[in-house]
């Protein structure tokens, strides 16, 4: 792959999901890091360069919306794509208002997700 890999941080308490999706994204040549909680996500962000966080909304402890709020405070240039098994428009709208780039309902279509990442890569290149 000639394009620069996107540095992705995948955050979800569903470990099997994180494992499988990260393997898939890595197969596409992206640089994938993983975290299993909001706290771990913020900890990684404080020491690693990340382009986009793919973030589950419903997690025990610090939930996705709170994590998103803190990401945007501490690292305003990091993009966030929200992911959830729940279809409430309100949460999604709140996320987008807080600065999330987009929102996908689980199980997300891989093509949709990668198309979104491609758009991100193009804006980053430009």
């Amino acid at each position, binding site marked *: 792959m000639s394009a620069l890999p996107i540095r992705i941080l995948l955050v979800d308490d569903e470990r099997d999901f994180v494992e499988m999706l990260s393997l898939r994204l890595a197969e596409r040549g992206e640089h994938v890091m993983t975290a299993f909680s909001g706290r771990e996500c913020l900890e990684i962000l404080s020491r690693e360069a990340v382009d986009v966080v793919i973030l589950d909304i419903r997690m025990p402890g610090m939930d996705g919306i709170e994590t998103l709020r803190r990401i945007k405070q501490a690292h305003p240039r990091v993009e966030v794509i929200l992911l959830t*098994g729940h279809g409430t428009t309100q949460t999604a709208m709140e996320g987008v208002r807080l600065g999330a780039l987009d929102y996908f309902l689980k199980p997300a279509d891989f093509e949709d997700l990668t198309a979104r990442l491609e758009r991100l890569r193009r804006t980053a290149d430009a």
Partner: protein
Amino acid sequence: MADRLNSLRLLLVDDEAAFRAVLVKRMRRQGIDPFQAADGAGGLRILSRQPVDVVVLDVRMPGMDGIDTLREIKRRHPHTEVILLTGHANTREGLEGIQAGAFDYLSKPVDIDHLWEKIKQAFEKKAVLEALRQDSQYRLHMAQQMAASERLAALGTLAAGVAHEINNPLAIINEAAGYLGTLLQKPELEDVPYREGMVNAVGKIATGVARARTITHQLLGGVRPDSPGLARVRPDELVDETLALVRAEAEDKGIAVARQSPPMAAVWIEADRLRQVLINLLVNAIHATQRGGRIVVGIEAGDGRLRFSVADSGKGIPGENLERIFEPFFSDQPPGEGTGLGLFVTRQIVDRMGGTITVRSQVGRGTTMTVAVPHRCGDPGAARGPGAPVCGQEARP
């Protein structure tokens, strides 16, 4: 009571023409024109042709006797009140009549004023019973409706909860199958035994996940975050746009689709949700309609509401299913076609819009689904003045 008496439908059954004449003359003065019969069979014939409130029935007549006639009247027309005219001082006949369901009896010769009083009382009793019947039917109907909608709301909450819990494992299956698919495309695995079988199996997993996903996403309402709320649109244009989306599918099946409404002025309405509702109803209508059939979408405005009706000439819904069509997973289509969630979700969307959805159907003739939703008028300034379009009404050029 006075003007209600004008509507009293009275039948007089007596073989004595002279007696009938006296009574009829008296009744006409009250503005009532009674039906007349000279015997029981004639009386029953009249009753079979039109409803009657009160029957004045002579017991002693040639042919079918009065008591038998009374029994037959009460059997066929239980809500009709009957006043018996018995022989002089014959209480046995009167008693028998009461037992057979007569309102009361008078012995001949009767005092006309007295009889008129009895007729009025019988009519009043019938009106009161009628009102009670309607009231209890109405209350029963309301209770059923409320029970049904509470049950649906509970089912909706449960279904959404289940859908959410299922989505997480479904996402794992989805990514795992996707990853397997990616691996199988690798050049190193090109010559691995059973590769084709594995590719095929992975494809089946993906198809199954997609099907399950359609169900869970539908249950969750599947509303995208970027869908705007209120928009100012012309209802007729909104319907035309929606029809354009389903026209190809309908025409493939040889079904004509059309809008039947005048051009309309723009209103503020939840356009996205409404479009979703109309699409769901149209897709259902297309499934239910045979080749050569027809689907018409109508729009009516009034009382701050817009009413959209989707009428098909399809197979119709049997009465026993009408109550169940809004339940989740109720479907008359084979498995795999139709999730059984379309109308369930549609109803939830309509509820969220503060609207109502109703269905009328006749087996073999077709079904009409009507959605009524509130709307707001556009810029009030633009809506004033001569020739200006009235909110939600026909637009005048």
